[in-house]
């Protein structure tokens, strides 16, 4: 593998290639050019994915670019962790870029040029976030990422909702960045410079390292969308064009996870189990919150956004468990947790990317994001329906697809609890696993709702069906290619987990110096064994083969022994002859049992029609409690402070002169 060029140079070259593609896009504002550039971008993504995968198996490489601050040129480093995330970035973005090449077919040339620029700058900045090896470059790339994605979010800036979504997004991102900056400052502690090497070497007292941990956790958490800093996420993701939503949800949130792992495990080091408990608590809250609110949504992209919140929670659960184990001195179990978290990171990137792309295709052909107006799309767009089904099954953590593997690994981590010494921690871990189980089942429910309502059944609104027919049915060729790529990713990651497990094990070793047990590493490609074969194993291939062959067998047996006559008829009307498509379950109706069971979680405003209403109307509004608890109070506090400070300036010149006078006197007194 020792080519003449180091891998890192190639990666940087590919990332710069993205930048160049973006700039070219602005220079040639034509639709055809933009399509070509998106495809080029996809190639770049593939290249980066391959290089990243190779980098996992190589020693770390470094590179210094003569840019940046006078004492702190841009340091770049490509180690296994960075390699893994580059693979994620490249692999997922490749599919999304291909999709994007087809998706933006209705944009005007000028706007498309801008989108092309912002999109590729976004990609490149994410690559540099992952490659950065000093605080300055990291912050620059981090904020560039926020900025470029912000502009993408407000592509449709004429809608006020999109603008406020963009504002909220960039604001929270910026506050998170401030927290991260402060974290770097704390870590530095006044020694040395701001290269990651120096930060890694700095030794902190336990108090300060806990402060640094908290700052990093909340700083990155703001970007990842964990509660209570998630508020931007369900607003921003629906606002963005679908490929961008896919990229943000699929990849950008993952850079936050990367940041957490990098800073907490690698730079701060000395992970403590108390941190892990904190992460677990927030993670469990995020998981449940995300899925419960997702169930209440009828806007498809908003629903998916809430699922991103949920999945970030699942990743945090894995990370938290890993911190608990590492902090208690159980390296192997800790490595398993980290691997589970990273595995889920990759999985989520793939299936959430796929689902957002699917949502984009639906939006394109029906012009709808509201589930309550959809129905029966499987007939008009069978291919999209198939890919979406793959994504839905994957996110519902159903075997043998990829979502199941990572949740399975997380469960296995939780099941390592008996090795812990601390009784309360030991009994809490399985409870967090139960949260995960609950969330998994709720996710399944949610995606039954999504799929059942959007794709199955009959069209709920005739005019939307007409729109779909006019739009030419299924997604275009490039779009389907993009979705197929990600759907294939779901299957491959689900079916061949061992390869990735070994890759991740190497990442874990390079970061925490702890890896899986030998028994786990000796397993062959067929059997996924996290600890020891007697404890647990899983073989998705066998699973798939068995289920497939059994199903086929049944099918052929039935075919063989059965006449195969089929009659078609209307569905049974239950004796009620005037059934219309509008009598099908709506998205809101589907969530009704959940509202009933988890009522206190939601802030509901409901209007029920009375028995004698002339025009019966049902309306339901669900608000996020965090707004009342956190965001509005903070906003009010700032408003209050500024109203008090405004009293300083009441327009009277005498008062102004008095300020000067008093300042002078005060300083003179101070001097004396």
């Amino acid at each position, binding site marked *: 593998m020792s080519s003449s060029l180091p891998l890192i140079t190639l990666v940087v070259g590919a990332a710069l290639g993205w930048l160049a593609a973006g700039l070219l896009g602005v220079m040639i504002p034509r639709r055809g050019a933009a399509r070509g550039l998106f495809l080029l971008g996809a190639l770049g993504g593939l290249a980066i994915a391959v290089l990243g995968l190779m980098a996992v198996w190589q020693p770390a490489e470094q590179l210094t670019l003569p840019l940046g601050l006078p004492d702190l040129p841009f340091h770049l480093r490509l180690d296994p962790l960075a390699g893994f995330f580059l693979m994620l970035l490249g692999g997922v973005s490749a599919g999304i870029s291909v999709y994007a090449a087809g998706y933006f077919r209705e944009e005007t040339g000028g706007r498309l040029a801008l989108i092309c620029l912002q999109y590729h700058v976004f990609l490149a900045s994410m690559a540099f976030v992952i490659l950065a090896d000093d605080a300055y470059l990291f912050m620059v790339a981090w904020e560039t990422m926020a900025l470029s994605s912000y502009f993408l979010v407000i592509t449709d800036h004429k809608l006020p909702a999109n603008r406020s979504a963009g504002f909220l997004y960039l604001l929270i991102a910026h506050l998170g960045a401030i927290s991260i900056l402060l974290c770097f400052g704390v870590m530095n502690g006044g020694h040395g410079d701001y290269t990651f090497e120096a930060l890694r070497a700095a030794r902190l007292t336990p108090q300060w390292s806990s402060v640094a941990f908290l700052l990093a956790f909340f700083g990155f958490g703001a970007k990842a969308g964990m509660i209570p800093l998630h508020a931007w996420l369900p607003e921003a993701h629906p606002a963005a064009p679908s490929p961008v939503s896919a990229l943000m949800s699929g990849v950008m949130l993952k850079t936050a996870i990367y940041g957490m792992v990098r800073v907490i495990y690698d730079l701060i080091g000395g992970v403590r189990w108390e941190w892990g408990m904190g992460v677990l608590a927030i993670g469990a809250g995020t998981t449940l919150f995300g899925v419960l609110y997702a169930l209440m949504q009828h806007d498809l992209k908003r629903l998916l956004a809430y699922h991103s919140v949920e999945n970030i929670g699942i990743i945090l659960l894995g990370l938290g468990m890993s911190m608990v184990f590492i902090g208690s001195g159980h390296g192997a179990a800790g490595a398993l947790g980290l691997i589970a978290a990273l595995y889920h990171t990759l999985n989520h990137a793939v299936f959430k990317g796929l689902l957002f792309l699917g949502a984009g295709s639906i939006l394109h052909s029906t012009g709808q994001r509201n589930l309550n107006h959809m129905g029966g799309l499987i007939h008009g767009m069978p291919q999209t329906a198939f890919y979406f089904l793959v994504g839905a099954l994957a996110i519902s953590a159903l075997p043998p697809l990829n979502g199941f593997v990572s949740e399975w690994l997380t469960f296995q981590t939780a099941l390592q609890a008996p090795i812990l010494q601390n009784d309360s921690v030991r009994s809490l871990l399985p409870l967090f696993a139960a949260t995960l189980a609950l969330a998994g089942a709720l996710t399944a*429910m949610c995606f039954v709702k999504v799929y059942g309502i959007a794709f*199955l059944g*009959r069209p709920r609104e005739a005019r939307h069906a007409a729109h779909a027919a006019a739009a030419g049915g299924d997604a275009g060729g490039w779009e389907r290619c993009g979705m197929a790529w990600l759907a294939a990713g779901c299957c491959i990651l689900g079916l061949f987990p061992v390869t990735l497990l070994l890759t991740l094990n190497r990442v874990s070793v390079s970061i925490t110096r702890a890896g899986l047990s030998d028994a786990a590493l000796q397993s062959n490609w067929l059997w996924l064994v996290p600890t020891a074969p007697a404890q647990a194993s899983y073989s998705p291939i*066998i*699973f798939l083969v*068995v289920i497939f062959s059994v199903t086929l067998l*049944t099918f052929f047996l039935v075919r063989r022994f059965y006449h195969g006559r089929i009659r078609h008829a209307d569905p049974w009307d239950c004796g009620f002859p005037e059934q219309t498509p509008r009598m099908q379950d709506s998205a809101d*109706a589907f969530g009704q049992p959940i509202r009933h069971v988890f009522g206190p979680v939601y802030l509901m405003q409901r209007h029920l029609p009375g028995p004698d209403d002339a025009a019966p109307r049902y309306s339901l509004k669900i608000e996020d409690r965090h707004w009342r608890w956190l965001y509005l109070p903070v906003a009010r506090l700032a408003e209050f402070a500024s109203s008090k400070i405004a009293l300083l300036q009441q327009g009277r010149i005498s008062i102004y002169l008095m300020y000067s006078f008093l300042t002078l006197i005060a300083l003179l007194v101070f001097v004396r």
Partner: protein
Amino acid sequence: MSQQAAIAFQILQSVFVVIAAPLLTGWVNQCRAWLQNRSAPSILLPYYTLAKLFHKDAVIAHNASRLFHLTPYILFGCMWLAAGIVPVLATGLPFTPAADIIALVGVFALARVFSALAAMDTGTSFGGLGARREMLIGFLAEPAMLMTLFTAAFISGSTQLTTIVDTLAHREFAIHPGLAFAAAAFLMVLLAENARIPIDNPATHLELTMVHEAMILEYSARHLALIEWAMAIKLFAYMTIGIALFLPWGIAGAGDWPALPLAIAALLVKLAAGGAGLALIETLFAKLRLFLAPEFLSSAFLLAVLGMLTHFLTRA
């Protein structure tokens, strides 16, 4: 010998479960009829029903998609897979490492998701209603089920059913208070998952109460037959999981031909008792209102958690 014998055992068990499952359903129905002072149908009635259904013409709604056609096969396949994994007759079967208890729960979830999707496919209001209720019960039952299984997993230090059964069956007799809680929880989950009273009534088609029947309302003929059969296998699998976890004695090892008759006999006895118990429960209790189901299942969940905590406390 062992490899071929083990595979033979595997095939034998799989076929056995598929064949014997309707029998269990018939037995439960028979017991219930006795308990309710009705004249009991034949224990073989489920087989007759299946045969009858297989001979009918299938009626399918105009707007049903391919998913609707496929679902019965997928359901049947999932259940067959489950039947192959659970140590019914023997432990150490070659397929069992392919899926542990968590994956087993995953298989049931997969089946549930597909049946719910199929229910929504025709676009009738009943289908949606059934799917919604089914998923409600499912999301409540699944964590409880997992917690139950986790308790067993913690006791045996493994999530492989084979290992669990081996550990529990071959240890010296010791009372695990944790396991008792878990058993109670498991029983409640079993009732919920298999559409039994007090959560659902398999014998009703009353729209206010039905859950599972609402979902399969549009199915007929061979599709319905497959679904019914799959349901029977599911009940069978659940019963055998319970037996494996809580009453594992008498099970054979893979390839151990001499122990097989005993294992079959033991299994039949246990199943007969279990089926009678199930019928008893269904007779003694009334169906709960749908919105009491969450309470029922959350108590199951709490019991399972209690079992796990008890295990942690008593172990030290």
